[in-house]
């Protein structure tokens, strides 16, 4: 469960203060599917980065699973990300010299999980995302859709409570994008919390809850 209270985030760009987030208060329940939309510069990516503990707010508090994570150190944040948050990026961010299976394994390697357990989970994830045949391929031997499925499998490998996807379809054609959204929706149906940032209204509309941001503030919050 995610609870943001009065989150402020300002950047200094060329000597000028830019208010990326203004007093954002937001609660995301376990198992929710949320899309964040808005024009570029509206602060939707900044909001996602703060939820993902990649960025820190200038003011406000952030509670993740009833724990205040606002004041944690960098390494503590890294551990929380490892355990609780799965990331899916627009540009996939796969390690080019590792195979699909090794990329999926990476978060578990960083966490020091037992190799036997890792192998078991990797096999399961490969099967689940239809990648078994591609397990030994490197990213440059995979299609965009396959790359994003590898990235989603990687995000799921630590069984996090939350999946954060920043323009997950932004680098894919329409058809493949629909397919990737299908995968994310299945995650939600299986009880996962999925937060998707997108500027594509069609993608955004597929979520159960839709947040609209303008100028760093939440403009609308629709459900159903």
């Amino acid at each position: 469960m995610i609870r943001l209270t009065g989150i402020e985030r300002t950047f200094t760009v060329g000597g000028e203060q830019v208010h990326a987030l203004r007093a954002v208060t937001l609660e995301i329940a376990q198992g929710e599917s949320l899309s964040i939309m808005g024009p570029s510069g509206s602060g939707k990516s900044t909001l996602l980065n703060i939820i993902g503990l990649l960025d820190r707010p200038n003011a406000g508090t952030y509670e993740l699973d009833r724990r205040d994570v606002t004041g944690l150190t960098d390494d503590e944040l890294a551990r929380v990300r490892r355990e609780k948050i799965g990331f899916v990026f627009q540009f996939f961010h796969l390690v080019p010299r590792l195979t699909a299976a090794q990329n999926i394994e990476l978060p578990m390697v960083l966490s020091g999980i037992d190799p036997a357990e890792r192998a078991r989970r990797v096999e399961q994830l490969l099967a689940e995302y239809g990648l078994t045949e591609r397990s030994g391929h490197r990213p440059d031997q995979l299609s965009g859709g396959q790359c994003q499925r590898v990235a989603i499998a990687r995000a799921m490998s630590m069984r996090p409570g939350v999946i954060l996807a920043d323009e997950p379809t932004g680098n894919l054609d329409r058809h493949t994008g629909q397919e990737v959204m299908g995968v994310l929706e299945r995650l939600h149906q299986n009880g996962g919390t999925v937060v998707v940032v997108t500027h594509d209204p069609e993608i955004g509309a597929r979520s159960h809850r839709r947040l609209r941001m303008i100028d760093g503030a939440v403009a609308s919050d629709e459900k159903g």
Partner: protein
Amino acid sequence: MRPADLVRFTYASVTAHRLRTGLTALGIAVGIAAVILLTSIGEGLHRFVIAEFTQFGTNLISVTPGRTQTHGASLGAVNTVRPLSIDDALALRRAPYVQVSDPIVQGNAEVVQGGKSRRVTLYGVGPDFARSLQMRVATGEFLPQDDPRAARAFVVLGSKVARELFGGGNPLGSRIRVGGDRYRVVGVMQSKGQVLGFDLDDTVYIPVGRALELFNRESLQEIHVNYEPTAPLAEVEEGIKRILIARHGTEDFTVTPQQKMLEVFGTVLDAITFAVAAIGGISLVVGGIGILTILTIAVAERTSEIGLLRALGATHRAILLLFLGEAALLAAIGGAAGLLAGWSIALVLQVALPALPVHVPWSYAALAELMAVGVGLAAGVLPARRAARLDPLEALRSE
């Protein structure tokens, strides 16, 4: 992160750029090969010199006249150095643990036989000289046990002198002239070769008393003392000094055990080995700079990957270790290649130039490899710290 995974991950990174890895490792390889080769030659030289000096045994003490010290008196003061005499040498036989005490005087003399003459190194020695220096007589015998003060006019020839004067003929019993006096040849030495440039075969040996007369000298050049190999050196030295001081009144002589000379040689040669190793070390530093460069580039290239790893939960320490591991691995590969190259070259040198002493101790090889890894780690610190300090978000955005 588990150590095994760390190794696998760095190995994958290093092998992803084969050419680059090869060239960077080459820098370290050249450095390590240079260190190995130069220290091998230094160590070989060390062993060579020590072997040359110890071929006569190590339980030797040399007693020489005069004493090296700073005098407070003016130059016109009475010279109180008394010559070392044959009687001194005989007296030293009574010193504790002493087995042999040999009076020695050395110089040049002309030997004449038939129509041939030759200038050779002449040793005036006692009858035990050959035995105490482990030198062997090829034919005949060494000088007999005469009273050294009134010995018969016998001469023993070095192998080269015998060959030059008598060709293939048997010199035993022949009479030759040594510095004008007539001597009878009683023996010919086995060939001993050269020691540090001195040809030990181009020599003749005559009784020491006659040699002193020949050179018109009062004093021996040296008394060679052999002591029991197991005896305590300090006591042997003490005994020699006591006897000579009793005879001379003061300590106007110098006692130099060969072991002390070896120690001095050892320190000098160690210094030489260290100096050449340091020269090799310079190329190792250059190799280290190569690693530093390539790793700095790698960090820049892989910024977004570092961002990803941080997003996936890698701590600062994990990133630091990954890049330090890469630096160490690069250096270790280079070090191993350098070891192999240096060792091969040393082997080739041994075969091609047997005169050049080369010796590769295994401890040096292990040390060199450790040194390579050390250089790699030192070179990796800066880039690895830079990588670890990257802000995950900014790193992710860079493409």
